[in-house]
């Protein structure tokens, strides 16, 4: 009876000790590897450059088409090319932001992504942004930029939803400049 008790106790100890000892022996030359698997190290390598600096991030998108404007609804659409410099496929689910006059900082309207866009790692995708000028914006274009056919505006304070991660730009960070035809002259 005592033998059985002893055997069961030894089995309990062996069940706990042997896997731990075995793993410690297997990783004796790299104890950190016990907790950080090589896949994590590789992924970190993908995210960080050889000099340890961040090599990915959000590159400023480039405008690819001329802005299309509908005077009756004061809405416009503009397309950007965006390179996915992340080492993984992403889906840009939404993008919202404010549009301001670059010269005067006047709030002109809001912009948002027309539809979600999936972009593979390292590839470039086209984002179509829809926007609406406010009535005050049309007045501002008329009074402050009445003689200009093209007006410089900036997309500011924008929030991007990339595959469920909300990226919110702080005030003044990553402004996207673009030139738009003066809507006051297109009425």
């Amino acid at each position, binding site marked *: 009876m005592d033998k059985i008790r002893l055997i*069961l106790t030894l089995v309990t100890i062996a*069940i706990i000790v042997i896997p731990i000892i075995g793993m410690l022996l297997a990783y004796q030359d790299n104890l950190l590897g016990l907790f950080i698997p090589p896949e994590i190290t590789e992924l970190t390598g993908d995210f960080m450059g050889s000099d340890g600096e961040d090599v990915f991030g959000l590159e400023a998108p480039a405008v690819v088409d001329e802005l299309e404007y509908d005077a009756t609804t004061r809405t416009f659409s503009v397309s950007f090319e965006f390179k996915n410099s992340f080492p993984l496929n992403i889906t840009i689910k939404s993008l919202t932001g404010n549009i301001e006059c670059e010269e005067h900082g006047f709030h002109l309207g809001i912009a948002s992504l027309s539809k979600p866009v999936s972009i593979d790692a390292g590839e470039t995708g086209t984002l179509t942004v829809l926007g609406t000028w406010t009535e005050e914006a049309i007045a501002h274009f008329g009074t402050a930029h009445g003689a200009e056919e093209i007006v410089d505006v900036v997309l500011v304070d924008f929030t991007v939803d990339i595959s469920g991660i909300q*990226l919110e*730009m702080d005030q003044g960070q990553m402004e996207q400049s673009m030139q738009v035809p003066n809507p006051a002259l297109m009425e």
Partner: protein
Amino acid sequence: MGSMLTKFNWFALAGGVATILLIVVSAVYPWWQLTVGDDLITVKASPVNMNLGFFDTSFAVPFIWALNVIGILSLLASGVAMLIYSVIPRKSYSMHLLGFGYKKPLYIVLFFVMGLLVTTVICQTVLRLTIPLIGSATSTLPIPLVAGATLTVLLSAGFQWSFWLAIVTAALCIAARLYHGKVVAVPSV
């Protein structure tokens, strides 16, 4: 009929079968699952199998893998001991088999829940990352991906049905211990 009922410890038989079944189920279905964003990061955890999905890569942490082996062996030993005990509950060594087997599923459930609690508290304290045990929470990621930007993400977590199977298994094993007194109290025919 009465002697048939007390000849075996039916709770131990059910507990033993449930324990073996739990090993198989837990290898496939996690006890607890955490999802970050749109499946950007997934954590599928059980004492038998823990799988981390980071973006498109799936991997296991060697130390946790060792703990999983301990989990599998403990449950297997417990299940076998409970099954053997269930058919010979009146032998002189049966109580040792029962004592060896009935506590392990309970301990494994307790260690698993404690491990989750400790991990979430460490994440909260060290990384300032709120990880919910159940339900959803929005957390700010402590990763400086883009200067001047704030990253927030939705984390969803919850216990899966296999966790409730583990609790039922632990309860059956405890019931077997309680029923043991009734089994040994009835004289053999």
